[in-house]
């Protein structure tokens, strides 16, 4: 009842709503952008590390997020690697990143040689039958569920109709797999692939096998699949910089919105501040009243931001092939961004008004 804060916010509903939206905007940006960049990277990394093969042989600078999708590694490497000491099996794989059919975002397609692929990974056909015809495709259960495809359904890839012959387990690499020979034909890259999976005779021996491969075939690159996850996580400084920039922009937006709102509010209420002073209100009391108002706006903005971000995430995941991570850590971080920027934004107006001459404030019209 004696609460100037809520009374003031109710007095100017439009301004309150705009300020709340301003803060929410920052929170949404942080949650979605951070979640998106992390989600895409981690998802990709997780699927790549979910492999039986210990090693991945490729050209230098030719593996990892953001690399070109052209098949560039000659398949002839595969039989050479197979002969190296300690190698049990090899399988060449083609990877191609293409725009998603349904909406925004990219989709990864893999071309595999199913017989050797099953020797180097734990892939098994869960439903339907294996990949045997050129116009067949196998998908993982998540893809089948997300895109609502069943065995026998058709999927358009590279302008061709492919039919789903089976659903495989577990998630490994791309969710859509066709025959490597078919991918080579379609992309005009005869006898080429993106990398070769290498399965070692014993897992504990993988470092030695990697050294053997590099000494036999120098100038190439061997990755440990167990490290691919972390490779994805730290492998993209550009993405991290981008995320930081988004966070900074969000903080600035929130600070400016609150500062502007508080500045106009206190100018409008100069006289009231004078009355507070005539009643004996200290500077800290006045600063505290204004900060409380900013805090309330920030908290409301953060809650609205969460609501929009979570709904937005759900809609994006449902309608696109993008993956957005929602980590508690980042939600808390976003709240901190919203609330701190509110408090900081209100500080200058609060200090200014608290130091005002009380007699002048009282005669303000």
């Amino acid at each position, binding site marked *: 009842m004696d609460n*100037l804060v809520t009374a003031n916010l109710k007095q100017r509903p439009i301004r309150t709503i705009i300020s709340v939206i301003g803060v929410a905007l920052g929170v949404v940006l942080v949650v979605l952008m951070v979640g998106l960049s992390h989600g895409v990277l981690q998802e990709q990394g997780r699927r790549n590390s979910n492999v039986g093969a210990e090693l991945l042989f490729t050209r230098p600078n030719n593996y990892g997020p953001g690399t070109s999708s052209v098949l560039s590694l000659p398949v002839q490497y595969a039989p050479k690697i197979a002969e190296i000491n300690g190698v049990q099996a090899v399988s060449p794989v083609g990877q191609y990143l293409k725009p998603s059919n349904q909406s925004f975002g990219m989709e990864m397609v893999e071309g595999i040689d199913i017989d050797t692929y099953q020797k180097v990974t734990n892939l098994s056909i869960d439903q339907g039958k294996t990949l045997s015809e050129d116009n067949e495709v196998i998908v993982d259960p998540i893809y089948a569920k997300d895109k609502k495809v069943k065995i026998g359904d058709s999927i358009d890839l590279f302008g061709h109709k492919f039919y789903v012959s089976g659903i495989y387990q577990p998630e490994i690499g791309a969710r859509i797999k066709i025959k490597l020979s078919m991918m080579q034909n379609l992309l005009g890259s005869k006898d080429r692939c993106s990398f070769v999976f290498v399965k070692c005779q014993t897992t504990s021996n993988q470092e030695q096998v990697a050294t053997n491969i590099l000494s036999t075939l120098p100038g190439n690159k061997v990755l440990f699949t167990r490290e691919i996850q972390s490779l994805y996580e730290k492998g993209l400084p550009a993405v991290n910089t981008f995320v930081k920039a988004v966070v900074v922009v969000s903080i600035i937006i929130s600070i400016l919105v609150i500062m502007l709102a508080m500045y106009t509010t206190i100018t409008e209420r100069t006289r009231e501040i004078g009355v507070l002073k005539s*009643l004996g209100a200290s500077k800290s009391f006045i600063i505290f009243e204004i900060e409380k108002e900013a805090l309330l706006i920030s908290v409301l903005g953060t809650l609205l931001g969460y609501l929009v971000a979570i709904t937005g995430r759900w809609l994006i995941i449902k309608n696109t092939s993008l993956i957005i991570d929602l980590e508690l850590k980042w939600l808390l971080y976003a709240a901190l961004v919203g609330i701190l920027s509110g408090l900081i934004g209100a500080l200058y107006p609060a200090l200014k008004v608290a130091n005002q001459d009380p007699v002048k404030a009282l005669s303000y019209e």
Partner: protein
Amino acid sequence: MKTILQTVDLKMIYQIGKVAVNALRGVNLTVNQAEFVAIMGPSGCGKSTMLHILGGMLKPSSGSVLIDGQDLSKMSDGSRTELRRQKIGFVFQKFNLFPTLTAEGNIRLAERIRLNGNHKNDSERRREILRLLNLEGRLNHKPLELSGGEQQRVAIARALVGSPAIVLADEPTGNLDSENSQIVLKMLQELNGKFGQTIVMITHSPEAASIAQRVVHMRDGQIVNK
């Protein structure tokens, strides 16, 4: 009789660019406890300036102001605010209620500031004041829903929160019609009579001044004998 307020050679010079305005030129004023003093004088003679200095809202250029034994003129801004919180209640010509709060909200806010929230021990006095000011039925109304006279009565109730040693009123009936002026003046008189409230009131109206125990006349920043 105890002296509650005393000024010694109080001077105030406003500096506007190169021009210096001598608003007060050495005011010596003494007010006793439970006294009701009216201050009269032509416009611009320095009445409001003096009242603001008495209430610690303004720092004088020179001279001293003793409120209940404490010298305001030597205090920091923060200490003057604290003294005002404890000992001074202001009433203004323009009422100056918070428009977004109800009458009761306005009084509660003052309680929050002046009593640090503990209005328990004052609730008996509070009820008595509200009865005296005849406000009991109007507490849930916002200022715009109240008449000028009612608003000024709420403002007086607010000024009385925390039992200030002195009430300083700057033309409290200046914005009221004669009927409401009568009511407000009568209430101020009762507060002085029943509660022994010390009141210093600026007024332009001889009728208003007549209810005070003593009238002080000012001219050109000084107290004069009429």
